[in-house]
């Protein structure tokens, strides 16, 4: 597997998601008014993630990391296009639920890819390198976006992040990572 292109991919999606994450609180401020609503918006995100993990975990071994990562990339790309249109608090709740599912897809797949491709003896070092690159990308994104919001509208941040996710969607299809579980295929042929 091409570990470098996986890091590139994670760098891009990491950039795109950290780009919007701290700033979409500004969006919430326009839609919601109370701390309880903030709490719910984030709580729904975490709850749907919790519910989705077992399903996603199983799917990951069946359909492969590649399929899940492309669902994540294209899903986020599409979802972010709805953020600039959110006007009511319930819009934000719906988006948060969908974000929760997609967030779980990403987290699970990220770890699955690492687990499958990292050499057990040097896992610590490899994961360290992986986190270094992705964290640098995230830091650049979040600082840069701070300046961007001053110059552009908040809505344009969502469009930029959405396009970044779409680009990552193309990258993931070209990536030679794990496509499906041979064990599962074997199981199928045995029947």
């Amino acid at each position, binding site marked *: 597997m091409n570990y470098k292109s996986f890091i590139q991919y994670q760098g891009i999606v990491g950039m795109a998601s950290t780009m919007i994450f701290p700033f979409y609180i500004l969006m919430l401020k326009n839609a919601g008014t109370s701390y309880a609503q903030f709490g719910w918006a984030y709580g729904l995100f975490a709850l749907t993630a919790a519910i989705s993990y077992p399903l996603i975990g199983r799917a990951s071994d069946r359909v492969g990391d590649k399929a899940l990562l492309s669902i994540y990339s294209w899903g986020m790309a*599409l979802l972010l*296009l709805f953020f*600039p*249109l959110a006007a009511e608090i319930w819009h934000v709740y719906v988006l948060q639920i969908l974000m929760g599912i997609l967030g779980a897809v990403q987290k699970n797949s990220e770890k699955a890819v690492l687990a499958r491709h990292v050499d057990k003896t040097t896992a610590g070092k490899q994961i360290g390198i992986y986190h270094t690159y992705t964290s640098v990308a995230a830091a650049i994104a979040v600082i840069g976006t701070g300046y961007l919001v001053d110059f*552009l509208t908040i809505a344009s941040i969502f469009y930029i992040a959405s396009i970044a996710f779409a680009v990552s969607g193309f990258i993931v299809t070209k990536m030679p990572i794990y496509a499906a579980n041979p064990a599962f295929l074997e199981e199928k042929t045995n029947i």
Partner: protein
Amino acid sequence: MKTYVIAGIYVFVLILSAFFYFNGLQETESNVHNRLLPVEIKAVRAGASEETIRNIVLEANEQKDKISIAGMQHSQGGQTLYPNGILLDMKPFNQILDLDIASKTITVQSGVTWNDIQRHINPHGLSLKVSQSQNIFTVGGSLSVQAHGLDIRNGGMMSTVESLRLLNANGEIVELSSSKNPELFHAVIGGYGLFGVILDVTLKLIEDELYEVSIDTFDYTDYSEYFQKRVLGNEATKMHLARISISPENFMEEMYAINYSLADRQDRLPEFSELKEERLIAAPKLLLGISRLNDEGKELFWNTQKTYIQSIEGNLVSRNNAMRSDSEFMEYNNASKTEVLQEYFVPVDEFTDYIEDLKVLLEKEKDFNLLNVTIRYVSRNDQAVLSYASEDMFSLVLLINQHADADGIAETGRVVRDMIDVTLNHGGTYYLPYYGYPTQEQMARSYPRTDEFFELKDRYDPDHRFMNIFYEEYRP
């Protein structure tokens, strides 16, 4: 292959999203933009109908509550706010009541925006006589601040009001015009919501026209003469706007003007009469953002403007479209800084000397972040009690980026008061809707009838049912 299908769907949704987003921008949301005045209020009540508004006033009378009246809330001096008061939100009171095409008048509820009116009258080939350059404000709000705009031929906004109905503090409705209850009429226009609730207004309209845009650039020393001869002196010219450089290269020297003059081929009006919607704002917003940062940014902003205006020379535009301007790019979100406006009026003949003095003052203030100066013309119009144009004046609108903390407020306040002194020394006045930096004494010098204004307020509303921070700060 599958990826391209997904990409295709993505692009489709992207276009849809952008379409709805930019459409949504038309319905401008209003928030209190300025965070310099954090005020706790008791309740926000929506004025949905005449009956509700009347009940809100009567109830406030019983409860001895104060009412502040709010439209889009773009005034920055607390004119729409009162601590622990009831904020009467007039935005829902937005019906167009009657359009009389024959006599060219329209009657609207005061929460209607100028944009609403434009959309309603444009199909009939009619146009507003006077409105602000931006069309997002409510009619009631604009009348209460006695706004003005690009038009140089139709006098002040007051002269375009045929009549209006006012709900007073007793819950009674009175009709006002320049002949009916003129005393109250002249206090309510430019009255900052202190005399009652403007319910509905009948405005005079004129016919839509086709204009040709022309551009001139010149030195500030030539502006007064240029304006009188080439703009005011040219009967075909109906609207005018100028800007003076804030770029360090030619600070307060270089100027450009955009004029709108009757086009030769009026029969082509239908080609241009469809109302334009807000354009993409990313480019001007980016440039304004860069100009906030430093001198190079300001230079770039000015030079880009000069290039841009060359590209609009000779454009044909309908009057209605000329009166719809973009303001979204000025929206600014920064936790520690904010943007404020100032507006000064100086007699046309005084312009050159005034700019020289203003320049000396501003060049000393290295930290004063001035982003834009737009100049318009207001003809003499001194009927309002708080009239800012006792003779023909240029109005200079200054956009200032400042820190929102106590030091920032103190610093900006000092410079603003100095600028107002310079303005007063040249026989000028300052505009009242902005942040309460000016002193009471400066208000009295700008507005010789200040005492009369507050006495009228106390006479017509002795219990001070209608109150705002502006009154508290400036009542001598």
